[in-house]
């Protein structure tokens, strides 16, 4: 017995919201990255759910795209974080505000 579609979507929304709050409130960039990953995967879950319930594979294809993109994004992001750490000896995102107007 498979749970109804709405449950999956609610789970997806809950995961996404947790991710949003994580991005907004945490200071550690690594945790922020994890939160972003959570939002992306929440979106993936929604894609797959719809794909299953509508009987079309397009959503599942998109989920793979999202995963690829997420991997690339993490690579770039981690590179930036490590070079910031090399310069400032700190990775607190609130310290990185030199573009302040």
């Amino acid at each position, binding site marked *: 017995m498979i749970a109804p579609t709405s449950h999956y979507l609610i789970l997806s929304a809950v995961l996404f919201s947790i991710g949003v709050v994580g991005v907004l409130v945490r200071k550690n960039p690594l945790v922020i990255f994890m939160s972003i990953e959570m939002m992306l995967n929440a979106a993936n879950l929604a894609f797959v759910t719809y794909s299953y319930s509508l009987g079309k594979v397009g959503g599942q294809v998109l989920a793979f795209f999202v995963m690829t993109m997420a991997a690339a994004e993490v690579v770039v992001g981690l590179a930036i974080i490590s070079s910031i750490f090399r310069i400032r000896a700190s990775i607190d*995102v609130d310290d*990185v505000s030199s573009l302040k107007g």
Partner: protein
Amino acid sequence: MLSYAWLILLFPLLGFLYSALVGRLLSRRSCGIVGSLAVGLSFVVGLAVFFEMLGMPAEARSVELPLWSWIVAGRLSVPFGLLLDPLSVMMVLIVTGVGFLIHVYSIGYMHGDDGYARFFALMNLFVLAMLMLVLAGNFLLLIVGWGGVGFSSYALISFWFKKPENASAGTKAFVTNSIGDVGLLFAVFLIYLTFGRVDYMGVFSEAAGRLPFDGAMATAIVLLLLVGAAAKSAQIPLHVWLPDAMAGPTPVSALIHAATMVTAGVYLIARAHPLYLLAPTAMIVVAAIGALTALFSATIGLVQPNIKRVLAYSTMSQLGYMFLAVGVGAYAAGMFHLMTHAFFKALLFMAAGGVIHALAGEEDLRRMGGLWKAVPGMYVGFLVGALALAGFPLLSGFFSKDEIVYAAFASQRGSAVLGALALVTVLLTGFYIFRAFFLAFHGASRVEPEVAHHMHRPGGAMTLPVAILTGLSIFGGYIQFIGGPGAIDRWLEPVFDRYAHPVPLVAGAETLQEPLMVVSVALGLVGIVGAFLMYVVFPGAAETVGGWYPGLYRLLLNKYYVDELYSLLFVRTGRWVGELLSGPADGFLTEGIVRGAARVVQGGALWLRRLQTGFVRDYALAVLAGATLVVFYLLQVGGIR
């Protein structure tokens, strides 16, 4: 041949292009020859047109020659068209004939000048513009020629532009003429408003029907035309530029500022006579301005020390005669005097130029004297020109001036006052021109030794035109008698009787003709004898007389302080307005607006920059808020179902 009349314009145009573009690079010497040839060829074509027109019946002697369609806008359609009629053909012959002689003379006079090619380019450009002015078949083309002569006059007055006073003399001429140009423009605007067209034939044939006699519109149009004419012809109160225009080379003074361009005002009034005849009040103004200018500038001419300035004031005075003539409706007399004046005034200028050339640029009469042996050709030329100018019997000026004096008395638009002014001017004319003559050519030499040592006679290119013009100044008056008296009146009759009735004479005026002639000749002779006594028999008498009336002498020497008055009234006021604008107005108004705008932007930016916190979190929140709003909006309009 009539349909080839555009060749008259083509030759000077080619001459101008040659000297301006090619000649100065290839061979500067060729510019003088090509320039003279171009004007000469125009003269030949003009003669051919003249003789063909002579063979036509009088009524048919008015031919419009549209060359191409020029301005087409709505109901207005103006062709680039010429009007060939006795008046324009007469002007063409004067302009190209005298112009040719002066071009030949310039070959000698300008020899060795750095701007030789530029000089001939500008002279040809002037002739082109002047011919366009007189051949134009509508008021718009007239304006093109009018502006063209103004420009070339400016460029030639400032020809030796390295001297600041020459440059400012050119500017003065240009500015004064611009006032006239504005008057002319507004006159043409009013003509277009009234008639809906600008071609001469259409406007003149409808004039009597559309303009009420002596009405406000007719008067306004002709007075505005008069502003233009007075500026070009150096009449009071726009006369100030002409004496200063003598800063240009002497051939320029002869061609532009004596024989041709300055007569454009007279031509314009004669051309627009159907309009003037509808506004008798304005005609009184024309005649009064003419008579006053004639007297006013003759008195200034009495004391000027510079030989070219004496001739300049004489030119103004003679133009005053022409204005007087056209003001009282004696158009043919005015045109006749225009022609003879072109002969003898060009001659006087060329002879004076010969003297100046021989003295290496000396123009001051106080440093001449006894020159008759040194430059005999110029001496004879100047003498004949002076006699013709003074109205000596049987020379050209005698006939034409006599007609004007007679018309001033005898025309119904004339009056005893105008006639009296003309007669007094005759006396002054005889005096001032012979004062210059005796001071330059007779008496003891006051030439500076250094200059006297290098004195040389003018060459053939200068002497030959002087000789020809000497002949014309002697015999030019007899053109009026070819085939019976009044030949020029008969030639011009088809023009002046075509659209309007000429001004009739006062009844019984014929009896005045002979006494007036005697009186005016006598007055001219008195002037000449007076000058002879004062400057030859009793040298030094002039200083004594000047000493009796020092105030009057200074007044005349300073040209009635008109320049000072204008500088006070207009230049000072203009400066004052300029300072007002550049100071307070610019400081508060313009600067205020410009700086205010900058300050608003700056202040807004200072306020807005606070949004840029630099915290990643704030940007993320903004993205979230934006995304949320978009989603809500889409839900609201039903974009998401």
